[in-house]
């Protein structure tokens, strides 16, 4: 499968000359299976360009939302396939004990926040609550589990032909876990990410910034490295960059953190447009 990053920014789009290297669009990742199956992980602002780039041969698209914070759904209304008949679009998201996924998405996709309602989308997307556990989309096996982030938030593990990737875009495994990463049984996301070939993980903060944001649901670059090491990931792609971090900051901080951690795996700061074969 091929994994392509269309948006790597967290919290808020960050357009500007200082962020062109890693990109300013919020979370969106395309996973294309060997059989042509297309999964889209999150619908941040990066999904607009993905929608324009999808070929006409893609007749089914499955959008898997990790959660419904704005930076993960803001691009949904600008995803062109939703306005096209002849495409089969499925949108998956976490359930809550109260409102349905349709009702919650409808709070954004309705006036006054957006002029088009979910029911008016020409593709008539099918909305699904994600059941925790495994399910299939084409030849891709998807495993979902709740992870540590405010509100119901899902991490995904996607596997095909013996290879796997994990997507933990918004994740704070260090919350209340003073022993991270020494207790796998008590570490959020551990099973999802265990032994994956490619791990996309939240790395919003520096260690110093994390101390000021404990409980906000995100990790530092150092914590992402420690988590990746604990789960035995083959490669780590840092993700969900803070909107205040420019290219120079991400380059310098990632380099310093990697030199300190001396990981045995590759560490790549996630950049918009980067693509990985898994």
């Amino acid at each position, binding site marked *: 499968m091929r994994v392509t990053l269309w948006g790597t920014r967290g919290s808020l789009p960050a357009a500007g000359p200082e962020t062109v290297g890693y990109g300013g669009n919020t979370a969106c990742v395309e996973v294309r299976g060997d059989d042509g199956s297309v999964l889209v992980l999150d619908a941040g602002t990066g999904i607009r360009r993905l929608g324009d780039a999808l070929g006409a041969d893609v007749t089914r698209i499955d959008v898997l939302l990790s959660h419904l914070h704005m930076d993960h759904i803001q691009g949904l209304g600008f995803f062109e396939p939703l306005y096209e008949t002849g495409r089969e679009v499925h949108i998956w998201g976490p359930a809550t*004990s109260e409102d349905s996924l349709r009702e919650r998405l409808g709070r954004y996709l309705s006036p006054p926040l957006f002029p088009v309602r979910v029911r008016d989308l020409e593709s008539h997307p099918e909305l699904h609550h994600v059941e*925790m556990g495994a399910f299939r989309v084409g030849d891709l096996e998807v495993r979902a589990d*709740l992870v540590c982030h405010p509100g119901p938030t899902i991490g995904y593990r996607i596997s095909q032909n013996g290879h796997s990737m994990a997507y933990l875009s918004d994740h704070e495994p260090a*919350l*209340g876990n003073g022993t991270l990463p020494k207790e796998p049984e008590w570490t959020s996301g551990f099973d999802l990410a265990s032994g994956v070939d490619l791990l996309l993980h939240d790395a919003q903060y520096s260690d110093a910034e994390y101390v000021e944001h404990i409980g906000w649901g995100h990790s530092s670059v150092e914590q992402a490295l420690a988590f990746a090491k604990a789960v035995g990931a083959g490669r780590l792609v840092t993700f969900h960059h803070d909107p205040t971090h420019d290219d120079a900051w991400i380059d310098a901080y990632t380099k310093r953190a990697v030199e300190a951690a001396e990981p045995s795996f590759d560490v790549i700061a996630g950049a918009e447009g980067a693509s990985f074969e898994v």
Partner: protein
Amino acid sequence: MAQREIELILLRATARALAIPIWLMGLDGRLLYYNEAAERILGKRFDEVGDVLGEELATLFQATAPDGSAISAEELPINIALQKQRPAHLPMRICGMDGVWRRIEVTSFPVEGAGGRHLGAVAIFWEVETT
């Protein structure tokens, strides 16, 4: 060992941060954790006890009604929360692993996770007086 559900992970993190005694039990009747405040009443550090199953719990402490009469395992609030999935409260006396009898009050509630999954039970207790 498989990773625990996120709701239990967060509950344990909360218990670790609080100064009120908390006991966390898994769905399979396994003791998952008790915090430092509970260690004082139970008379032994959790790390020395580990995660033990229900029948072994009887070796950790003795429990009676406040008047000293016997109470069954089924009457214990943690077991009611676990098995009947409803909150329960009970005044009782316990003798912890330090051999000291204490009068405590216990409130338990079931842990219902996202989607209504029954994941275990929590007991919050506090000492009323030492006898």
